């Protein structure tokens, strides 16, 4: 059992969780992830570690409520427990002095890109960060990313904050204006990472993406997270999660990530129905004392 010490809303539907996990905190490096399971009937889901505090023995993760498991996680507060959390898994990001590095974070991917961006900055790189979100409310870690970047560029899809557009628009501008770029790191939705890869592939800029396939054990045992890289099967949990973007077959990743869409939808519906039922029962129970009082009056 792993205790949640703190929860903090970062944006609508996005929360940070600080969790007691001393073994993981001691060994975590940027780019690595954990697999968590909320309760005895829960599924195992991979989540990138945002940061860790080896002295306090804690790790923090940023989670967007998308399906049943993440919604259930969002319903938990400080003092409550997760059945399991295992890690740190995957190979850490390669941290070296590359020169100028562009870090691209899309949506909640920004929180996953943040630890690597910070480590790249510490390693002496010039860091240009581009972070994007659907709208103003969903822009994540702007201050934190700003603190570890030489230049921070922000986009929103609807233009409600900073510049209207996509992160790839900004990246294209950088490339077209002749900015020398030694490495691009992109973390976010698969379609975003694919768009980044297409852009930088044409410009021959080395690019790394952090892949998010469906996983179970996270130790290389099941092969469910296999991705097609340079025409060969690689396991994202042990060979990744980061891969050279221009070798990744994103179509296969998108196809495999959609494998359980119907089951995920059904799971989510049942969860919402159950939760509505619980709320109704709680409401009815809250009404009971009044009914008893009325009986007593008669």
């Amino acid at each position: 059992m792993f205790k949640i010490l703190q929860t903090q809303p970062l944006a609508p539907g996005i929360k940070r969780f600080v969790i007691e996990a001393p073994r993981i905190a001691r060994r975590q490096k940027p780019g690595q992830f954990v697999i968590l399971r909320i309760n005895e009937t829960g599924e195992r889901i991979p989540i990138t570690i945002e940061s860790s505090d080896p002295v306090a023995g804690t790790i923090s993760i940023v989670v967007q409520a998308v399906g049943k498991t993440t919604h259930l996680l969002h319903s938990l507060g400080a003092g409550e427990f997760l059945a399991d959390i295992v890690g740190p898994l995957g190979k850490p990001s390669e941290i070296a002095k590359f020169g100028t590095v562009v870090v691209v974070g899309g949506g909640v991917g920004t929180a996953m890109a943040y630890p690597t961006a910070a480590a790249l900055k510490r390693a002496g790189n010039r860091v240009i960060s581009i972070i994007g979100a659907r709208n103003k409310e969903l822009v994540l870690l702007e201050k934190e990313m700003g603190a570890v970047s030489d230049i921070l560029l922000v986009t929103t899809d609807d233009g409600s904050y900073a510049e209207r557009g996509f992160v790839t628009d900004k990246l294209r501008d950088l490339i077209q204006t002749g900015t020398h770029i030694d490495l691009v790191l992109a973390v976010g939705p698969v379609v975003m990472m694919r768009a980044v890869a297409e852009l930088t592939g044409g410009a021959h800029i080395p690019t790394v993406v952090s892949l998010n396939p469906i996983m179970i054990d996270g130790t290389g045992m099941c092969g469910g997270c296999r991705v097609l890289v340079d025409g060969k099967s690689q396991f994202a949990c042990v060979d990744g999660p980061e891969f050279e973007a221009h070798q990744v077959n994103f179509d296969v990743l998108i196809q495999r990530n959609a494998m359980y869409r119907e089951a995920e939808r059904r799971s989510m519906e049942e969860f919402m129905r159950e939760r509505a039922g619980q709320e109704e029962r709680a409401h009815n129970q809250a009404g009971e004392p009044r009914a008893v009082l009325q009986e007593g009056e008669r």
Partner: protein
Amino acid sequence: MTQPAARSANPLTLKERMKVPRQLMPEQDAALRSAAFTEVNLGYSPELARQEAMRCLECAKATCVQSCPVGVKVKEFVQLIVAGDFAGAAAKIREDNVLPAITGRVCPQEDHCEAGCKLGKTKNVKPLGIGYLERFVADYEQRMGIRHLPKVPPTGKKVAVVGSGPSGLTVAGDLAQRGHKVRVFEALHELGGVLVYGIPEFRLPKQIIREQLDCLRDMGVEFETDVVVGRTVTIDELMGEEGYDAVFIGTGAGSPQFMGIPGEHLNGVYSANEFLTRINLMKAYQFPRYDEPMVDMHGKDVAVIGGGNTALDAIRSALRLGARKAYVVYRRSEAEMPARIEEVHHAQQEGIEFHMLTNPVEFLSDGKGWLVAARCVGMELGEPDASGRRRPVPIAGSEFELPLSVAVIAVGTSANPIVQSTTPGLATDKRGYIQADGATQRTSRKGVFAGGDIVTGSATVILAMGAGRRAAKSIHEYLTSGAWEAVPT
């Protein structure tokens, strides 16, 4: 013919014993069980067990014991069954085998003890049902809630065991019985390794594993789940700051092999490890009560590629999950199948269809990323290969399409690299398996031992347990003498 021991409680003469037929294992009806995950074999009654035990010839030179990878004292425990002392028989087995309820179910006795049984050497006489008897006494002890555990003084030595599969649990049990403090680290959230994620409920109920784990806890063994050694903590940290005097690595074979044919990334194509893990560990067959999903197999055609026990476990699970057609596709013939004969028979009874001498060359898509068929080629057997089995060769012009919604690839595993790549100085072979001495299970690192599939590649539960037993003996010697010098062999 050997004379029975004078103290034998067996009233039958040797001749009479030869005439008693081998008592059949009561089984759940094939039609009923093919739709359920409940156990196929139901177990002997005390009467059946005593009748079977009385067939034992009580040979002076017990070749059954010599044929057992962990050296269970077969003759002695069978004599205790004849005498009606079932609990005593269980305690006798535990001296050599800490997981009798498990081996009584999944060990291929026909290759070990029962292959060595003298009864079976006589024409038309079947060997003693040693596995069935082992299972009977282990279950009897559990049902009765009696367990004779030896009390041993603590030695003050600490041993870390990496992996809670058959080899690790054996090391843990054997060392705890010698007074050492043992802590077992498991990567998954549940203990048991391949016993829980790999072997299905209908062959090895999870409750049996839980009971065997409780028995190890009673012996003082500690367990910690959610620890991936090599990632969460390293071998060096275990032996350094965590203060372990020795480490045993039993991480299993681990990584599934794929065939490298087109279409392996299609939705509906699974490795056997993933397929079985979703079912056994994650209980995907109880979706949506359990959250982990899997492809719905009701009314679908499913094939497993491969001929081992894992392949049969997978396809028999698919059948239980509602598959309309369930095929085994194997590139050699039935004679070369590595699976246990009993499991092949069970699968045939349940209605699994066998496509022997057949190999898929491509998985075909519906155009939207989902599997619809396997393009297969017929094979014939040529000259023997390195494994000694005749090499399958494709027959020109024999290609055909087998319509399928789900394909499960069970063609073997390769070494999982996590521990090896994070432990400096730990020698591995060309294929990445850990090198360990065959007699002592010592690795190239002082105080570090290894055994089971991570040393040998995919094998069986009992062979892993045999390695665990040798390792425990050698760890005990190391902890008591402190000597590491290579033993001349």
